[in-house]
């Protein structure tokens, strides 16, 4: 019996030895590989790829607090793939054409309509019952209905919760006006005089500068014409701007400015930064573009010259004595996000977007992380003073802040609240917002073009490819390499290329929606 006991204990000892050996041996060999599975949350987060164009005004950063917070709250990990704005159009088209879109892609309303039938987009309207917040937003943005293609919604628009009203407006160095004892111009003709006077006083300057042709739509409208497909709110119809006789006036005016060296010779090709620099360093004194830029120019100018100031002047009267402004529409409905139909976990993404349309999500995507970047004060979220301090000295405080935090329109927000910007903003900006709205020439441009059928889209493509090369001649007219006497011919060329037909399509489409 004693012997048996001894044998049993020995056997047990050996067994335990073996087991522990196997265990530790196994551990030793598996040591290396075990390190990789560190981040095992209870549910693995849904990882999605998100691509959009990057606006040069605000760089898109990838590991921002907002992205982290979105992961926290919605269990969705966003892998951002921003593309510089200038390239984005092409890139986007390639992705769409090759049916190779990531989980979330930033597109324009037109793209949604165009590619809706390919089935590459998730049909958002099917999930509307899961999106209570978005439904609420839809009520405040009636134009969203224009996004529906054949009764279905394929993309999510960027909506507005609160916006400091902005617009493309005439902004001028009022300090120089004072210096030169000039009156504020009230019409385009007066503008010409003022610019001339400025040039005389500052011969090295080019008083009027633009960043390419983006000013043309507002400028032409202001002059009583139009540029591209323009909406006539009085006649309630769309028209093509360039082939109308009124346009000649615009070209003539600008050509005069160019010839007299009042218009920056690089106006057509300035990068925004370049253009910013010129306006910030007193090489130009007037621009007709987004009024909010002036805030930055002012802060830069005032570093050297505390008196320097860009300010808004009321919309100028055109030759017919009317002023027509150009205010940014409600929301940014042109900018949409579409979800790939191939995505693995659509519900998670839908839920995330709906959250972003709601109170909490909207707060996060516009303010950042509570207690880290903002706090609730009197029931209203406010950026933390420490955060504001941090960015106050940057060249473009609001944009730099939003870039770092990952907030705002130009980052991920779909229900934009510009209040943080307001906090950081120059009081001028707020003032301008109010002034713009109350300007007699105040006019909100439509946010969205009407939605087209496939046939219409094809036709539009057909015509626009013919008209675009001709449109390039606008610069030539302005610079003078194409004589203005050729205008009529050019206009009829445009018509021949299909400008009227484009108009017709637009108006038909519009009628359908109405």
């Amino acid at each position, binding site marked *: 019996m004693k012997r048996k006991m*001894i044998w049993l204990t*020995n056997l047990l*000892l*050996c067994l335990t*030895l073996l087991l*522990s*050996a196997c265990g*530790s*041996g196994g*551990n*030793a*060999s598996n*040591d*290396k590989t075990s*390190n990789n599975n560190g981040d095992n949350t209870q549910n693995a987060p849904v990882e999605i790829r998100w691509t959009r164009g990057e606006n*040069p005004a605000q*760089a898109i950063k990838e590991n921002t607090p907002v992205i982290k917070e979105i992961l926290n709250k919605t269990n969705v990990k966003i892998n951002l793939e921003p*593309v*510089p*704005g*200038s*390239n984005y159009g*092409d*890139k986007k088209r390639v992705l769409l054409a090759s049916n190779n879109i990531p989980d979330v892609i930033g597109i324009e309303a037109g793209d949604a309509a165009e590619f809706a039938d390919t089935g590459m987009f998730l049909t958002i309207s099917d999930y509307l019952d899961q999106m209570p917040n978005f439904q609420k937003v839809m009520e405040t943005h009636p134009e969203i209905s224009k996004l529906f293609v054949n009764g279905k919604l394929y993309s999510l628009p960027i909506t507005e919760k609160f916006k400091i009203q902005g617009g493309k407006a005439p902004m001028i160095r009022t300090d120089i006006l004072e210096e030169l004892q000039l009156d504020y111009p009230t019409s385009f003709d007066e503008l010409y005089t003022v610019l001339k006077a400025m040039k005389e006083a500052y011969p090295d300057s080019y008083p009027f500068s633009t*960043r*390419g042709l983006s000013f043309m739509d507002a400028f032409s409208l202001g002059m009583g014409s139009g540029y591209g497909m323009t909406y006539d709110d009085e006649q309630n119809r769309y028209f093509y701007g360039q082939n109308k006789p009124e346009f000649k006036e615009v070209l003539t005016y600008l050509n005069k400015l160019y010839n007299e060296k009042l218009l920056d*010779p*690089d106006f*057509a*090709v*300035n*990068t*925004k*930064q*370049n253009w910013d*620099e*010129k306006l910030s360093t007193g090489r130009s004194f007037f621009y007709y573009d987004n009024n909010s830029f002036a805030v930055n120019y002012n802060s830069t100018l005032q570093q050297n010259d505390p008196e320097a100031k860009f300010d808004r002047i009321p919309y100028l009267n055109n030759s017919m004595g009317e002023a027509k402004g150009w205010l940014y529409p409600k929301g940014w409905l042109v900018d949409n996000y579409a979800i790939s139909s191939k995505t693995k976990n659509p519900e998670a993404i839908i839920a995330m977007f709906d959250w972003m349309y709601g109170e909490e999500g909207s707060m996060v995507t516009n303010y950042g992380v509570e207690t880290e970047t903002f706090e609730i004060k009197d029931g209203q979220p406010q950026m933390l003073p420490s955060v504001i301090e941090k960015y106050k000295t940057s*060249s*473009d405080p609001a944009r*730099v802040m939003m*870039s770092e935090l990952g907030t705002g329109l130009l980052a991920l927000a779909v229900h934009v609240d510009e209040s943080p910007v307001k906090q950081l903003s120059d009081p001028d900006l707020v003032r301008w917002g109010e002034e713009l709205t109350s300007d007699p020439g105040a006019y909100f441009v439509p946010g969205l073009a009407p939605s087209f059928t496939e046939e219409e889209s094809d036709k539009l493509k057909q015509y626009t490819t013919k008209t675009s090369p001709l449109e*390039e001649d606008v*610069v*030539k007219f302005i*610079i*003078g*390499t*194409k004589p203005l006497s050729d205008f009529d011919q050019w206009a009829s060329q445009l018509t021949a290329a299909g400008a009227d037909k484009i108009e017709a399509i637009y108006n038909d489409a519009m009628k359908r929606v109405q």
Partner: protein
Amino acid sequence: MNKLMDSVRVNKLFVKILFSFLSFLIPLLLLGTLTYTNFVTDRKEEYAQKLHLDMLSSTQNVEDYWRKVYETSTVFFSDPVVIRLMKPKQDWSLQEIADLNLLQVSMSRAKFNINSFVDGFFAYVDNEYVFTDSGINEYDYFFNKFYRYHSYDSEFWSNRFETVRYMEVMKPTRVGTSFDSKEVITFLTASQIGDNKPVLGVTVSVDKIWKLFDPILKPGVNRMIVADRNQQMVMSSDQAFANETALRTIGSTFSTNESKDIEVQINGEQFIVNQVNNELIGWSFYTLTPVEEFNRQASGIYNFIVTLCIVLCFVSLVFACLFSYRIYTPIRRIGEVLENSSTEWNGDNDVATRYSHDLQHIGAGIQRILFHQSQFQGQMELLAQEYVDYVLFQLMKGHSLSDDQTENLQRILRTRLDFQEDGFLCCTISLKFKNRFWTDIQDVERIIIESKMKNLFYGLMREKANLYTLETGKSQYTLIFNVSLTATSETVKGGMQELADLFSSDTQFCQLHIAIGDICEGVDGISKSYRNSISALHQITGNPDFKIVEFTQGSSSQAPIIYTYSDENKLLQLLRFGNKEDVEQWVEELLRSNKDALYSLDILYTKLFETGRRFLVERSIDPEKVLRAEDKQYLLQSQPMISKEDTRQQILLNFFFDTMDQIKLEHSSPRSAELASTIKQYVENNYMNDLHLEKISEEMGVTVKYISRLFKETYDFNITGFISELRVNKAKELLETTNLPVSTISAQVGIFDRTTFLRTFKKLEGVSPNEYRKQNRIGKEDHDDKD
């Protein structure tokens, strides 16, 4: 407790067993070390290989980037728009200015393919403008603000189009934009377009490059250094690391070939270096993996092995102790037992006690036991033999055995002699030696012959049947055959004939008379058959050299004297133990039974007298003392005397009575020891002559065989050997001291045959007498010289 202490006491045996268990660990340790080193080496190799592959793939990606950039730049400069519009500001025509947006489009298009990894994309041809894909920037604005190189100012760039060769790759530099700053690698290409030399700059952020090496760098263990053709550092993944020293060390260790794993030491740490060269860029990529890493991984298995070894050591120790105890204790007990028993036998403990537990001595002890056992066995054999001899002898004599004795005898015969049959046949062989036997054969050899004769007969006849040989008289042997009752004596007879044939050549030395008796039944039949053979033997008349006689009933016209050994023994017994009346009665009886043999009665008397005389000599009593002088002549004479029987009888009886009286006086003296010493003395005094031991034995009334046996028992020495030795020693003396020839010496020592002498000498000394003389002569001469 003491017992425990006892057994655990350190002791050679115990330690030996313990160590033999522990030696089990040696292969384990060897194996463990081998496994460990193998594992580490294998891992290193595996890792280095995998790393190399990763490196190759990643550097390939880097190369791809570079190639794409290069291609882009080539495409860019061949773009007709670029060719047309890329010129200094002052050279532009108005038309060209109007078309500048096309340049922007071209740049955008060129950038498209490399957009995923490229950071900055700019071109310039003068100090006025820098073109990017988003438009035109003023030169100063661009390099001082929009894309500011921390280490270079705009001056630097304006020199570029003087100095940039066709392609130049700038080392990583820090670039700041409005939003952030980062390290980029700038790839500059220049082209000649007309009088102008536009420069295209494409930058890739260093982070993007490192991202390509993610699989290598991600675990955070490896470090990478990139060096250019001149072994100057381009960039490194870990700024905190001693990159310069590392590079220098690597440079000195490496040749320009690619190698997979070379170990270098940097700042006291060992690293394995993996190198990949890229021809296109001209950069070398080095990955440094600290050897610690492998050891850390291997530490797992190392710990495992060490733990296992330790545990096994411990376990072996436990087992060793356990088993040692278990094996050792019994051994110790055996040792103790032997120790105790050895004291009984040997009495000398001094060596035994100390190492009694030693296996060797235990073995010795066991051997002793076995030896003693065999000794006793031998003695037992001898005793048994003697018993059989004795009993059979009694039977011959005519004594009747008790029932017990008969039973024992039967059993012994059956078991020891394998006498399975019921019938017995006695065959008596009488061997009479002739004169020549004593003169021509050396005494020593004579003894041997006489001693071994019985064995000879046994050996010869063994085939025929189971037999037993007895010596029943002087040179008289009886062979008792065990045959079945129904068998004939033909086989025996045939055997005897063979025997006779054997001896036929030796008739010069002896006479051989063989008498074959009847087949009789039972143990009693043995004596009957014996008597028959004796009477048959006595019928042999004359002195033929050789005769075989068979017993037939009703032979013997002349009744011979029957005075057998048994009769003789009976007499001896009576002389020893009986009283005078019995002796008288027995003698009368004997004489009466032999009264027919008138003519040979005096032979009987002589024989009886001999018996008495021998009786005395055995007891070391001189018969002369006992014998009355006047009676002597009567008794000793062998001639027939015409005298009154009565007188002769009376004389004999008187002699017997006196003998018995004498015995009563001196019966306490040990016979055999005295006899043995007598013999020895006789030999020592007479060895130089031919020893007639037969004469002695006759005088003393014993057989030669008895003398040899007695001698051996007493002195533990063969008598023949003893005699030879005495002779050889004397011969040696003579060889040394005299110059006598060998044959003379031989005769002087008592060996009358020279050949025999040489043989004997060589047997005992190992050398021949002459050689011996030579050897000792030399010594003696030296000795003489010294004197």
